[in-house]
């Protein structure tokens, strides 16, 4: 298959990139390993989208940048943060014109003040429906663009590199087992994040760091890989089905709520307001648990018992019934919450045209590192997907317009039929790796645990380095082995970067180096070379 622009990943960043590239005159193939617009992080987003619209109170994108940089603890790449904030209002209004349905008052789009923002800046779709509405809207736009060929169940196994230039990708159609060559003048990685690496995560199974592994193997640099964001108040207990574990964020920005330890004390000085940024709240909860003041399941209480049934219904309508079906009555009981792996600040190193270090290879959305530094501000993830996706699409199309169609062979070693399927149970190994990462490479780290994690990660290498040829029929064992191979490589990047950074900053807290050090106000870059992961700062 040939195309001008290949977009890998069909969440908000990939879909926006495809729309942007088609608008600029390119033929586009939008490929996703799952279903278009349904498998990634976007459809699961239940929170807000930050943009300086000035609908609720006067605002300017420069204020949004200032808050983003402050939350990023000195590590944001300012040009990327600026792009995110400056282009945000245009994307949000474009989505509004496309009928996404941002919640409104009579006169204007409603904006709430999420933690870390200096004013109400975050839009959303009721009720707890931001992600599904965003996905549906972008899919509807794509359906109207004949220049975009959407194709699901296509898993990219490696980028195709010729003379150092990206010329497309090698892929597998996971339904038929057919090996595909996707030939493209420009390629955009919009594969999302890596939080599936942690036992406790709010990820889908597609967030296994595919894009980072693809970029690394293609020769691109990654940056800031040690900064994995844990969302502080992920649902913990009682068991809740049919709701994403990050669902308490909208409850807090609408209703406040009290975060309490086992002694029923508010330990964050919030006084019922939702004001603590994510790194602080995460560490505060973990410290309460460590001090023996955790809840029965090892977290904190979140209480909305000050709210009446009528208030709850007015704010969340049918969601209250879904909670009732799970046996939860917020007027009578507090629920348990605890930090949960949610987003990756690090990622592929790009310039403000979204170009990676590999010519003709772009990246967009969560796959990109740098815009959010050491700690992401609430509401910036979907904004990042929109703005970076659009920019990547436009720039990739412009580059494709002056590029001849490259030809690629099928020679790369991505699936040899003579290579036997590994003897290991990759599903079980993924579960073990998730436990190791959660225990030793989570929000609180120390050299001993990081060393043990690296030992485990290194020992896994031999078992999953080679991929055999896939069989037809969504071959589950092959898929697990594919995922384990990428997860393992990305886990090594995080653990190595975390071990090297001997300070505490934002999402990276070292128990053996608790202070923030000026000397460390710098990025660490990672590339593959000399037979392994190489760290540079």
């Amino acid at each position, binding site marked *: *298959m*040939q*195309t001008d622009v290949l977009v890998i990943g069909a969440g908000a960043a990939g879909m926006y990139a495809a729309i942007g590239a088609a608008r600029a005159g390119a033929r586009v*193939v939008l490929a996703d390993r*799952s*279903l*278009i617009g*349904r*498998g990634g992080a976007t*459809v*699961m987003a*239940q929170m807000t989208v930050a943009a300086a619209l000035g609908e609720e109170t006067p605002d300017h994108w420069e204020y949004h940048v200032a808050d983003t940089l402050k939350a990023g603890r000195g590590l944001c790449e300012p040009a990327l943060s600026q792009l995110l904030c400056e282009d945000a209002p245009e994307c949000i209004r474009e989505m509004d014109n496309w009928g996404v349905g941002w919640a409104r008052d009579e006169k204007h789009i409603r904006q709430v003040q999420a933690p870390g923002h200096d004013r109400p800046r975050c839009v959303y779709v009721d009720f707890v429906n931001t*992600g*599904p509405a965003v996905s549906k809207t972008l899919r509807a736009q794509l359906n109207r663009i004949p220049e975009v*060929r*959407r*194709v*699901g*169940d*296509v898993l990219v196994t490696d980028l195709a590199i010729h003379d150092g230039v990206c010329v497309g990708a090698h892929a597998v*159609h996971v*339904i*038929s087992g*057919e090996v*595909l*060559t996707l*030939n493209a003048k420009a390629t955009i990685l919009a594969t999302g994040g890596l939080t599936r690496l942690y036992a406790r995560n709010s*990820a*889908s*199974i*597609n967030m296994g760091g595919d894009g980072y592994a693809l970029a690394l193997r293609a020769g691109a640099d990654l940056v800031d890989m040690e900064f994995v964001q844990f969302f502080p108040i992920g649902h913990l207990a*009682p*068991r*809740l*089905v*049919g*709701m*994403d*574990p990050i669902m308490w964020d909208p409850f807090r920005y609408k209703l406040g709520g009290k975060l309490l330890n086992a002694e029923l004390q508010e330990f964050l000085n919030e006084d019922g307001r939702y004001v603590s940024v994510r790194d602080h709240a995460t560490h505060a909860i973990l410290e309460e648990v460590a001090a023996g003041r955790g809840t029965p399941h090892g977290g904190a209480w979140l209480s909305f018992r000050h709210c009446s049934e009528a208030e709850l219904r007015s704010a969340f309508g049918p969601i209250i019934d879904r909670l009732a079906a799970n046996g939860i009555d917020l007027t009578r009981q507090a629920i348990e919450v605890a930090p949960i792996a949610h987003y990756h600040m690090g990622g592929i190193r790009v310039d403000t045209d979204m170009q990676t270090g590999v010519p003709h290879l772009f990246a967009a959305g969560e796959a990109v590192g740098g815009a959010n530094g050491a700690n992401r501000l609430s509401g910036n993830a979907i904004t990042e997907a929109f703005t970076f996706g659009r920019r990547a699409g436009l720039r990739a199309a412009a580059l494709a317009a002056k590029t001849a*169609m490259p*030809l690629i062979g099928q020679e790369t070693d991505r699936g040899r039929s003579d290579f036997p399927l590994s003897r290991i*149970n*990759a*599903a*079980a190994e993924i*579960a073990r790796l998730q436990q190791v990462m959660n225990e030793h490479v989570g929000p609180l780290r120390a050299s001993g645990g990081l060393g043990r994690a690296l030992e485990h990660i290194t020992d896994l290498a031999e078992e999953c380095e080679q991929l055999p040829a896939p069989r*037809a*029929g*969504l*071959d*589950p*064992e092959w898929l*697990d082995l594919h995922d384990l191979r990428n997860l393992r490589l990305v886990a090594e990047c995080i653990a190595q970067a975390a071990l090297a950074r001997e300070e505490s900053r934002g999402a990276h807290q070292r128990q053996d180096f608790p202070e923030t050090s000026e000397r460390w106000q710098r990025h660490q870059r990672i590339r593959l070379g000399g037979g392994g992961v190489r760290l540079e700062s």
Partner: protein
Amino acid sequence: MAAECGLKARLRIHRGTPGTAGRFEVHEVPFEPGQTVLDALRWIRIHRDPSLAIRFSCINANACKECMINVDGRTVYACMTRLTESETTLEPLPNKTLIRDLVTEIAPPDERLRVTGSFGEPTEE
């Protein structure tokens, strides 16, 4: 294993690929009240049989809508259906093309790659 001494759920699961005679396999899985059918299927893949195919993406959020299967004759989402202590029969959707085990073709037709070969532009210039 403490979990093995507690409550058990019994699942009869359809196995097989197109063109082969399907069969049912029975698995017993430990469970705590509140757990879902998808939880049990994921447990089986990790602890008993990684070759079992089930399609899902979002795991617990009811957002991706990919885990639709037939449970005791009803079409449901595996992630939303609670386990029970009695025996439960799991089958692929009856009105969709079988891919493997519990997985059927659910992608919109215009977003599929034609299974028989390449699509769209020819591979060579």
